């Protein structure tokens, strides 16, 4: 049922066009009104090879609402294949064709023999938010492009983590995750970002397993691939940031993939030594910042809320106040996610609140006693409540405004250092 979206944190399912855009040389073909893509795009970082103003679109009008837009969709796909130089065409439906009942699937099937693959995902805005839309696109790829493979590439691991563009650090994070897998002596396979495209998609069935690094997004996709492609999967709920979680991540994946434990331990020793070299040097700052309490709140999707909470508690020794999960997490995942937040060092349990109404979140922050100047990591919306509560504020989750993220990442040992740089750059911008 409709509900108040006050301080909105997500987009609609058709914003999964950004998931498509993250695949190199894949183009969304929109069966929608003329302005959806412009609206759903991030306003910067849109001048890559493909961008929203390149997406073909049926630009449905009043007449199409009455008579249907199937014919227009046909000519749009047909001409997209001629005009746009892409490897993969992904037809996405918006609200209009799905309410008026266009048979999009039938139109798309007419292109089964086209020179380039044309697939389809149903992403009407009212079908869910962009986390759900992202999953629909991955399922469409599984169903439309993949079949079980006899041939396996030893050590190949498919990685599924951030929702591209919704998490502005996706491009850097995926590369950093690949690096960790490579450090274990395995071969990472991802389909998003620089030089990741149709070839990587084709390799998916040749992997030994899928690695889902997210509290809930992608779990359904992995189950679907398990059934359809016979690919087993490892679900690691926490995006690893900093030494504690990254070392745990390496152990878990190493063990699952059968990497000898001596090798894993040697790797962890080397990485932690490097990481703690810097932590040691700057511990003075972390311990002697005068105006920062030990308590913090994260306002983010489950993915970031969990990752950042674990980092700040287990690496930095801060204490969690309430943590706010704003991605409208499907009900069936909420209890397990609550559990993840209760598995912190020293038996610390973080209270998690699933809430999409930002007004209530701000009230809760206002009412909580942080025993001093709070640290708030969240969306741009938290800037105002941070000002009001004299908090240190870092904009790490959607919506991100007033900062530029090109290829930065928070994943891994270096990612942890990067997050500390960002937090303490904020803390140092006022009297200490």
């Amino acid at each position, binding site marked *: *049922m*409709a*509900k*108040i*979206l*006050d*301080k*909105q944190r997500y*987009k*609609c*399912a058709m*914003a999964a066009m950004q998931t498509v855009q993250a695949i190199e040389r894949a183009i969304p073909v*929109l069966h929608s009104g*003329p*302005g*959806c*893509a*412009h*609206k759903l795009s991030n*306003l910067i970082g*849109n*001048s890559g*090879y*493909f961008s*929203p*103003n*390149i997406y*073909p*679109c*049926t*630009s*449905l*009008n*009043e007449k*199409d*609402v009455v008579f249907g837009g199937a014919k*227009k969709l046909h000519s*749009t796909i047909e*001409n997209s294949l*001629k*005009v*746009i*130089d892409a490897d993969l065409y992904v037809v996405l439906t918006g*609200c*209009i064709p799905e*309410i*008026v009942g266009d048979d999009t699937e039938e139109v798309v099937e007419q292109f089964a023999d086209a020179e380039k693959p044309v697939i389809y995902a149903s992403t*009407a*805005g*009212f079908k*869910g*938010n*962009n986390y759900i839309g992202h999953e629909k696109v991955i399922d469409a790829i599984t169903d439309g492009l993949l079949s079980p493979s006899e041939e396996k590439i030893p050590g190949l691991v498919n990685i599924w983590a951030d929702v591209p563009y919704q998490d502005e650090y996706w491009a850097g994070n995926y590369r950093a995750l690949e690096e960790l897998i490579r450090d274990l002596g395995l071969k990472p396979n991802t389909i998003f970002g620089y030089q990741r495209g149709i070839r990587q998609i084709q390799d998916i069935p040749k992997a030994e397993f899928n690695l889902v690094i997210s509290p809930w997004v992608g779990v359904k996709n992995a189950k679907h691939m398990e059934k359809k492609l016979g690919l087993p999967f490892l679900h690691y709920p926490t995006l690893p940031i900093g030494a504690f979680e990254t070392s745990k991540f390496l152990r878990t994946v190493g063990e699952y993939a059968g990497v000898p434990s001596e090798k894993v331990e040697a790797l962890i020793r080397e990485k932690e030594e490097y990481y703690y070299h810097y932590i040691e040097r700057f511990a003075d700052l972390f311990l002697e910042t005068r105006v920062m309490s030990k308590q913090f709140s994260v306002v983010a999707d489950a993915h970031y809320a969990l990752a950042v909470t674990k980092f700040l508690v287990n690496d930095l020794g801060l204490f969690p106040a309430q943590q706010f999960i704003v991605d409208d997490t499907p009900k069936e995942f909420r209890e397990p996610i609550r559990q993840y937040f209760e598995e912190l060092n020293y038996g610390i349990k973080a209270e998690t609140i699933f809430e999409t109404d930002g*007004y209530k979140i701000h009230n809760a922050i206002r009412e909580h006693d942080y025993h001093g100047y709070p640290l708030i990591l969240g969306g*741009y*919306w938290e800037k*105002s409540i941070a000002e009001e509560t004299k908090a240190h504020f870092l904009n790490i989750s*959607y*919506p991100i*405004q007033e900062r530029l993220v090109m290829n930065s990442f928070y994943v891994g040992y270096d990612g942890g250092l990067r997050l500390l740089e960002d937090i303490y750059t904020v803390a140092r911008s006022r009297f200490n």
Partner: protein
Amino acid sequence: MTINLNSSNVGTRENRLGSITGYIGSLSDLASQSECGTLRGCARCFSQSSSCLSMCALSELNRIRNVAVIHHGPAGCSVVASLQEYLTKQLAAKRGVTTNSVYIGTDMNERDTIFGSTEKLRDIVLQVNERYHPEAIFVSSSCATGIIGEDIDSVVDDLKADIDVPVIAVHCEGFKSRIWATGFDIADHAVLSGIVKPPKQKRNTINFKNFYESARDEIIEIFSHFDLEPIFLYCNSSIEELEHISEAAATTCICGTLGNYLGNGLEEKYGVPYIHSINPLGVQGFEAWLREIGRVTDRSEVIENYIQEQRAIYIPQIDEIKRELQGLKAVIGMGPGYTFEVTRVLNELGIEVVWALAWHYDKKYEDGQVPPAMKYLLDNQIDFEASVSDQQNYEVINILNKYKPDLFLSRHPGSTVWASKQGIPAVSVQDEFMIFGYKHTLEFAKTLLDTIRNRSFEDNLAKRVKLPYTEWWYQQNIASFMESIK
């Protein structure tokens, strides 16, 4: 054209003004067909995504201080909320005022498309009113609510009994017009019908419709010479200010596409004269505009003196730069409120426009006349190849590839880089005041010169990137996908 303020709905530009989004030919042909009424636009059997009218309408309204916009639809429709928060807060801070305007969505889901959700919408409006005590509430529809027939007018009418500030229904079904500028009219209509009050007195104010007030201080200074006080709309406007715009001495705007509905509406309904001149861009534009303001507000003499004073300062400097720009060739792509003004300015500066694209074309304005910018070009025998294209990028790139101009000038986010990718220096006329008056015309000319004198960025980029189209497309005529409207 009579503006009907008793209905919450406003006709599209296509229906009201005969506006079009598809045409290829020349400026003179476009103009003469507009004048004799034979112009019919084309449709396309292949097109690319453009913009949604709701973005123009609701962003304009949300920039009014201390209002609430409630966008009834799935989460994607209201996604501009965070951008609005960012913009409105920065713009208010820049001016030293505060705003508590909010942009709220209703996260409509599948069940709502079957059973409707007007009850829930009603609750949300009441809740927003309770939380923020806005000075006005705009309740907007979307494609989904439009198709399933949600009656937002009734919800709004009902709520008027419970809420003591204006609650206004705004109809923003994105499928209703391909011309996003229809959204400007929708916003103006909401303000005219729901906020503006009949005049009680005459004031020495001039309503100035613009986007972001970037030349606010200097325009206040200019008008202070004429004993006129500009009221900038709608960015940082207060509801109280808007209630009184019917008392102004005149209405003007920086962009005809943006200001035409409000200007003509105030003229028709309350007798506030609308400045029907070319816009204040470039020397000719600035002078014609000032003189028309002088004529309408009975200040011709003082304005003429001002013009002469300023000419003495700026014209020699502009003439000097002009010599260096002479003979350059440009392609330009902007909304029609800018394309036909900026082509005139380029002509003033000695730059030859080889092709002009307008993102749409209004064959006449609300007053039944051909837009003044167009008339000016025609009267002065300025002609060039022209097309009307709602930001169809494949057409723009094809034109640039064929003409390889010295410069590409554009307006609208994301439209500039495609020239740079082809090694063509590009200037984004993003600030609506970039060519305003003598001072900015001079700055603009200097910026053009700086741009063509250092081509490093576009050289570097063009060497390393590939354009997103097939070789096949570059060999086609840009009209390949145009078809007559059935």
